[in-house]
């Protein structure tokens, strides 16, 4: 299974104090866990080594280095890029001793089935929508919406934690924009991964 954890250290912005994770960090961690679960990007069976005995646990620590708004979008991209880079070493279970032997030389990449991409909008006074808000825009906004789509145009998550009300038509507008943005972002991620892959 996967354990996502979003950390907002005081390094990234003066609004976060050091100490136990605040509400924003916890809500973001829950959101990432939901996205992973809803989009089925990693099937838990892929992480199984031996049925009923041994399985991989992936701890995903998403640490914010610089906070300028739109935390959720950036966290989802970072997670996606990191998971694409994951190499799981092969594990053989010794039948006699029952212990596992990890072979670090033989690694297989993780299979990612879906590519969810998040798009956030800031709402101003029920009328104006701004994509990819900065911290200043978020502070002044009366609400936010985050839409997560996958490559088939299916919605993995619609996250609108309160804030000013939206009509169904406006929500539909956000969703269509999110689907267009998904294509651009996916191209960007593929390009970046290819450039850092060892030849």
């Amino acid at each position, binding site marked *: 299974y996967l354990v996502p954890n979003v950390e907002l250290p005081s390094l990234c912005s003066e609004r976060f104090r050091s100490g136990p994770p605040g509400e924003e960090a916890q809500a973001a961690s829950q959101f990432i866990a939901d996205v992973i*679960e809803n989009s089925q990007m990693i099937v838990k069976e892929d992480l199984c080594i031996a049925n009923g005995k041994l399985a991989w646990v992936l701890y995903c620590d998403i640490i914010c280095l610089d906070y300028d708004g739109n935390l959720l979008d950036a966290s989802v991209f970072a997670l996606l890029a990191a998971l694409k880079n994951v190499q799981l070493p092969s594990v053989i279970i010794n039948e006699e001793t029952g212990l596992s032997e990890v072979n670090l030389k033989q690694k297989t990449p993780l299979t990612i089935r879906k590519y969810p991409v998040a798009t956030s909008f800031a709402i101003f006074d029920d009328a104006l929508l701004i994509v990819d808000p900065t911290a200043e825009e978020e502070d002044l906004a009366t609400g936010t919406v985050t839409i997560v789509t996958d490559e088939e145009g299916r919605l993995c*998550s619609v*996250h609108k934690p309160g804030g000013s*009300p*939206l009509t169904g038509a406006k929500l539909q507008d956000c969703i269509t924009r999110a689907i267009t943005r998904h294509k651009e972002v996916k191209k960007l991620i593929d390009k970046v991964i290819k450039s850092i892959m060892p030849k």
Partner: protein
Amino acid sequence: SIPPFLSAGDTSVLAGIYGPAEAKLSKELPDRATLEVLLRPKVGLPGVLERSREQQLRQTCEAVVLGVLHPRTAITLVLQVLSDAGSLLSCCLNAACMGLLDAGLPLSSLFCGVTCALGPNGTIALDPTVRQEQEARAVLTFAIDSSERKVLMATTKGSCSVEELQQCLATAQRAADTIFQFYRDSLHRRYSKS
């Protein structure tokens, strides 16, 4: 007075509202009231899920409560889950709204929570039970406001297509009428004692 206690099927949530009371100096806002939501699960300590739900409930309430009428105060909303048989978040939303009404806080509109479960064969079930939620492809919860039936809050679990979302939203908006009627009836009963 009897605190607002909302029971939908077998899911019940108890809401307690405290405020507008004096706020701690670190938390007070100069021009509006500070809203705080505490969600206590039935068993165990509140975890990350409760925090996420608290944030959603808080921002939904902040959108309707006229905080500018009570600057530098704190309004605390405590929700205790008594039993969970499905549709917990929408039950919490309804309990919160009735609590705010009962406390007499100034609100710009009412809101209600509706949960839709998308079954494997495309059927939409409103206010699903735990079993329906588990079997469903997707579970969507909306908070609908009373003035223009707009969406105040939306959360989805599982994936669905865009058309299915719109269908669920339309169904939820229609169901909201029944819930608002229920609010009116229960408040009428409460305040028309002879």
